[in-house]
């Protein structure tokens, strides 16, 4: 007997099923790891991703990852917006040493990673691209660990500020290296020069336009946190979509939007963004999907390079903060902790690697596997470092042990 109302076998895995399963798997893995091993929840989210991903079980194949890419963009977009919103120019103006420290932190880690990669025989151009990507700290990890531990204080504030600065600088550096990649790829001079200009100028302009719209509509809505949050999500999604249509950088556009929203809001129309329960959704999905795209292959073949990359990056950051941190108001002992807190790399770096290798196959399989392996290590271990640093600095809320 044929019952027409029954579904046909085999079941087709639809997007909602996939999405819900990812969310539940990430949440439960994070909670379990935190409860039984006292590890940060983020590590659990990412591990769930690794287990579901093509590297292990393959439940999430490359195709599924590709279709879910929009979720990564959306989550990352919101996070990067919040990060830009933390970039307080007034503070940097008031405390010049802070600006010096932030710039040095990025510059030193760039130089250190560049030197390490060149030592291992990468061409200068590739080494520079790798160094640019290595400059950035994971904004999602920094924000989520701080949020989960309810961390407050100077080390937390500076970690977020430095993360904002190093992400912006990493993107700038990578974009400025584009013409050289272009030339290697035998593009014409005009194309090589115009592309970075288009990316930077276009992203900044789009971010500015979105900011004007956001401020204008916020003023009209009034100071209601709930409504402003919906407006923000709407505009962030809209901006991401527009940036993709125009082939601009999503991250640059959103950082610009966040940065300008904070610093151009002369009438104080915007309420500070608070990640409530809704925010958790974006975080879980981002880390699960990032976890699924992690690659460990190169760890066995070129573990030495990966190790050197991680070490050089940390030393660069630590040296800068040790040298300039004190006059900027980091308390004794805080510099080391701050450098540890800045360790994580994750989704943002994955996106940078992917975007670059999609544009330029010349980017090199070898380098991207090294980078992705380093990211894998720092995605899983970095949150531990951040959690340790914030707790050690006494800035985590008492009673909020695990993140």
């Amino acid at each position, binding site marked *: 007997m044929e019952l027409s109302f029954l579904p046909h076998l085999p079941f087709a895995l639809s997007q909602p099923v996939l999405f819900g399963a990812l969310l539940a798997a990430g949440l439960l893995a994070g909670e379990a790891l935190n409860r039984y091993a006292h590890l940060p929840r983020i590590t659990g989210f990412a591990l769930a991703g690794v287990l579901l991903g093509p590297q292990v079980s393959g439940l999430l194949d490359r195709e599924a990852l590709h279709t879910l890419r929009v979720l990564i963009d959306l989550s990352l977009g919101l996070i990067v917006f919040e990060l830009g919103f*933390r970039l*307080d120019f*007034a*503070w940097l103006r*008031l*405390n010049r040493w*802070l600006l010096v420290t932030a710039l040095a932190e990025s510059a030193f880690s760039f130089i250190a990673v560049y030197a390490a990669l060149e030592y291992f025989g990468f061409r200068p151009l590739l080494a520079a691209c790798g160094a640019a990507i290595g400059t950035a700290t994971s904004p999602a990890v920094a924000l989520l660990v701080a949020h989960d531990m*309810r961390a*407050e*204080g*100077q080390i937390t*504030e500076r970690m977020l500020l430095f993360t904002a600065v190093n992400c912006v600088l990493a993107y700038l550096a990578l974009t400025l290296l584009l013409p050289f990649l272009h030339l290697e790829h035998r593009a014409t001079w005009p194309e090589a020069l115009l592309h970075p200009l288009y990316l930077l100028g276009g992203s900044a302009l789009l971010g500015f336009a979105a900011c004007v719209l956001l401020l204008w509509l916020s003023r009209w809505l*009034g*100071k209601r946190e709930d409504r402003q949050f919906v407006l923000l999500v709407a505009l962030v999604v809209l901006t991401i979509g527009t940036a993709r249509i125009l082939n601009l950088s999503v991250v640059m556009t959103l950082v610009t939007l966040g940065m300008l929203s904070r610093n151009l809001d002369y009438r*104080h129309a915007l*309420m*500070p963004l608070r990640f409530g329960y809704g925010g958790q959704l974006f975080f879980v999905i981002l880390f699960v999907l990032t976890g699924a795209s992690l690659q460990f292959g190169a760890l066995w073949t070129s573990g030495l390079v990966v190790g050197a990359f991680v070490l050089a990056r940390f030393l660069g950051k630590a040296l800068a903060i040790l040298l300039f941190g004190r006059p*900027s*108001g980091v*308390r004794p002992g805080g510099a080391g902790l701050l450098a540890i807190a800045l360790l994580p790399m994750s989704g943002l770096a994955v996106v940078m690697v992917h975007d670059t290798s999609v544009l330029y196959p010349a980017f090199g399989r070898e380098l991207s596997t090294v980078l992705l392996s380093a990211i894998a290590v720092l995605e899983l271990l970095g949150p531990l470092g951040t959690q340790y640093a914030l707790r050690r600095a006494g800035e985590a*809320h*008492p009673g909020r042990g695990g993140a």
Partner: protein
Amino acid sequence: MPETQVADEMNFRPSAHVSIGVELELQLVRAHDLDLARDADDLLARLAKRSLPGAAKPEITESMIELNSGVHRRYATLADELRVMRDIVVKEAGLLNLRVSGGGSHPFHDWADRRIYPTERFRAILERYGFLAKQFTVFGQHVHVGCPDGDAAVYLVHMMTRYVPHFIALSAASPFYQGEDTSFQSSRLTAVSAFPLAGHMPFVRDWAEFLEYYETMRGFGVVASMKDFYWDIRPKPEYGTIEIRVCDTPLTVERAALLAAYAQALVAYHLAERPREPARAAYQVNSFNRFEASRFGLAGELIEPYERRRVKIGEDILATVSAVMPHARRMEAGDALAELAAGVRSGYSDAGWLRARYAEAGSLLDVVREASAAWAGGRDRT
């Protein structure tokens, strides 16, 4: 505690002249979201390296610091010193991305988020008082006025009790609490009243009788030192002062200095003219008067305990200012009192100013922002 140390603490050290000094508890606010910060420790460490006149100290939670002025004979030098301290504190706080604000309460912080400043004394207070300790994240001004001896101090505490509503109404700056308009001019005092040792000094005749009372309470183990009495006005033998503790921290150091000038003139007037003798009635009407002042401010009514009549607090202040004016002039504080009286006539209060900012901007975030700008001296507040 050894016997000699107790004797030493309770040994009243006479103050020459009618000197004044103030303690101000201040709010530390994050620039990012204008909620209370918890950076007292980092800020105090920076302040320790600056040549700050007076002193900066930790308070019960990490969101507060306390500034202590030096001892002054004149209002003007006190005001100058407070301005210097304010400028240094605002600058150092800015380097840590903090704002500093006056006002008796933070309008929307969540008391449960507060963290106790890690000293033994504050931890003991948390241990004993539980959530009261965290809810004690309110910000007051204490005014010290020098007394010639212990007997005078006891007399003055009795006398100044009549003026408690004046100080409450003149300083009131905590209309908002936990995100709501409390309808009070000063909501801060209710946080103080919850403590078992809040209230007032007992009706003792002289210093000897006070010491007897103190030793009895200490014998019971109710208190370990004078610090454990959270009275509205208390004698402070080691400084040789009486300490008026009912004021909210005003929104500006200028107003804080005006309040000190008023206290100084009142004390000078009572020492020189001894217009009244202590009466129990002053304490019998105290809670009623205190409530009227915290709830309605200058517009409230107080019961005058000596003449047994009701009078508007604002009018009573103006009458009192006229009575003490000759003494204020003698101490070069005539202009200060005239300024204070002008504010009373126009009905000004810091609480009213804060409510006006809320009405104008529609968000308590803006109230905090404007209050910290006012503290830094960046706004004209008339």
